[in-house]
């Protein structure tokens, strides 16, 4: 791919030192905003729909469709809000950090255009506390956007006005859940809300609010500048654009790559990551963060887009892969994941509050050699008990995905722990 084929990372240097705003403008920055302000909101929403941009936070909901639900014009209760979900906290995920550190001006321009697309009056970038460098660089990018008339009253002489604030959270996975994020911004505990109504109609302080992930909106300037067809042409499948794919674990190269959406899983693993480190054998992987199920070598031909990954029984999630090697215990790995989810459960609904600690404790018993054959049955039961539809939000259903995958692909490892009364890796 050439640099023009990389809407997300074209400006990002290897050392991640970002372009300053003058360099960013010279590289074509803020031209998309100028163009967008000449267009109607409806036209922009249609373009994003035609581009088939799907939400990169993990759920893959079509962005244009989400925006089309926001009440527009005189009918809408004001002020309306736009929130950028930059609370990147899904274990194994480190893609939005790259965009915010490497090209903060792109993130701010994208947020302005997206806010305009839903007529938002106020935009928040909801950033997790740990991203200190992102916070410094976004603050500078926002300040400079105000100085140059890209933010504030009557942006670039238009009738559109927007205020933008950076919100630094204080560390809680639930803040990345859409309603948790809204509650957190209102100064409440980050717990989910009853749906309907959805945030797009009744969101922050009861007003219409669109919430989108950083990587999602970072595609919007390209769609405005080059059109939906060019955006779709970047992809290998019918889901438009490129995708930030990443990998961690014991492989030769761990990092993020911007590749055509739908790049095969095996290509990312072999060609880009270079396969396993010497001395380690591949056993499986989670394709898109902690809330996805395991895949194995037989899935290497599968395309890494939302619909193809759904067919494998896993999910694309955030597109950042975590690799399990032969010197790492799969039971221990799942215990680590469930420990995270049990700790981060907000406690609002019973299946999650009670179920996840039970899963965690059962896995710990097995890992320590105190497990029984019945315990494996209890784990199986929880993959059903905590599934989507039984809980208020997607935390617990996501949490049991890697558990379900491990039980399916590594049953002998669970049985060995129980039979030998110890972890074979310890």
């Amino acid at each position, binding site marked *: 791919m050439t640099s023009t084929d990389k809407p997300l990372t074209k400006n990002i240097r290897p050392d991640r030192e970002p372009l300053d705003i003058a360099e960013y403008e010279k590289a074509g920055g803020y031209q998309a905003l100028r163009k967008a302000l000449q267009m109607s909101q409806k036209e922009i929403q249609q373009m994003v729909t035609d581009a088939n941009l799907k939400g990169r936070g993990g759920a893959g909901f079509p962005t244009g469709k989400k925006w089309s639900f926001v009440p527009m014009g005189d009918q809408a209760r004001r002020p309306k809000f736009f929130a950028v979900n930059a609370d990147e906290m899904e*274990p194994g995920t*480190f893609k939005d950090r790259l965009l915010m550190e490497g090209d903060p001006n792109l993130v701010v321009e994208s947020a302005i255009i997206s806010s305009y697309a839903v007529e938002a009056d106020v935009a928040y970038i909801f950033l997790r506390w740990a991203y200190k460098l992102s916070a410094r660089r976004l603050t500078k990018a926002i300040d400079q956007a105000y100085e140059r008339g890209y933010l504030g009253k009557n942006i670039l002489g238009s009738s559109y006005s927007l205020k933008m604030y950076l919100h630094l*959270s204080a560390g809680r996975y639930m803040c990345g859940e859409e309603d948790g994020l809204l509650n957190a*911004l209102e100064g409440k505990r980050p717990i989910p809300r009853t749906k309907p109504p959805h945030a797009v109609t009744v969101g922050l302080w009861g007003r219409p609010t669109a919430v989108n992930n950083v990587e999602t909106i970072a595609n919007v300037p390209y769609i405005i500048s080059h059109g939906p067809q060019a955006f779709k042409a970047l992809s290998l499948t019918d889901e438009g654009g490129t995708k930030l794919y990443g990998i961690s674990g014991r492989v030769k190269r761990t990092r993020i790559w911007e590749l055509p959406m739908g790049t095969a899983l095996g290509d990312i693993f072999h060609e880009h990551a270079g396969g396993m480190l010497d001395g380690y054998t591949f056993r499986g992987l989670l394709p898109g963060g902690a809330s996805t199920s395991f895949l194995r070598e037989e899935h290497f031909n599968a395309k890494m887009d939302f619909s193809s990954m759904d067919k494998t029984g896993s999910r694309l999630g955030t597109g950042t892969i975590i690799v399990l090697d032969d010197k790492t215990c799969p039971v221990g790995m799942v215990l680590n994941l469930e*420990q995270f989810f049990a700790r981060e459960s907000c406690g609002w609904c019973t299946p999650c509050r009670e179920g996840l600690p039970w899963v965690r404790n059962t896995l710990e018993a097995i890992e320590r050699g105190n497990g029984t054959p019945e315990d494996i049955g209890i784990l199986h039961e929880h993959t059903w008990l905590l599934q989507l539809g039984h809980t208020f939000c997607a935390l617990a259903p996501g949490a049991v995905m890697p558990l379900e995958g491990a039980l399916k692909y590594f049953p002998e490892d669970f049985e060995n722990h129980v039979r030998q009364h110890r972890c074979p890796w310890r």
Partner: protein
Amino acid sequence: MLTDEERKEIDEEIGKYRRKRGAGPEALKIVQKHRGWVSDENLQDVARYLGMTDDELDSVATCYNLIFRKPVGRHVILVCDSVACWIMGYEPLLRHMEHRLGIKLGQTTGDGRFTLLPVACLGACDKAPVMMVDDELYVDLSPTRIDEILDRYQ
């Protein structure tokens, strides 16, 4: 009592939100920045300032990992214990740190120099294992590297 400086900083935050309580998490972080942690008395002062009950604000304070409702050391070490770091050697690193500092997770050294806490995925999984000390991120950790890093903090 909140200081004038704290009030000024909190007022600035209040301006960003439609209701005062929206500034709650930030107000607690402001107090924590100046005092190291948030005592019951500080919490009550902030709650009153934002027009909330103490319990309302405490329910927010206690749900966040990084609002300290107990005293912490001069420096806080946050060790990532999530999956990528765990695969890449979190357990031996933690043992090394606990041995060196003579404390367990959740504890503070006797000289008040360090508090050691676990933290969820820091989003630097390509450079695992990682940790933060105060506001600084440290990557590609090994026992020797940890020794060098901790020596810098007094």
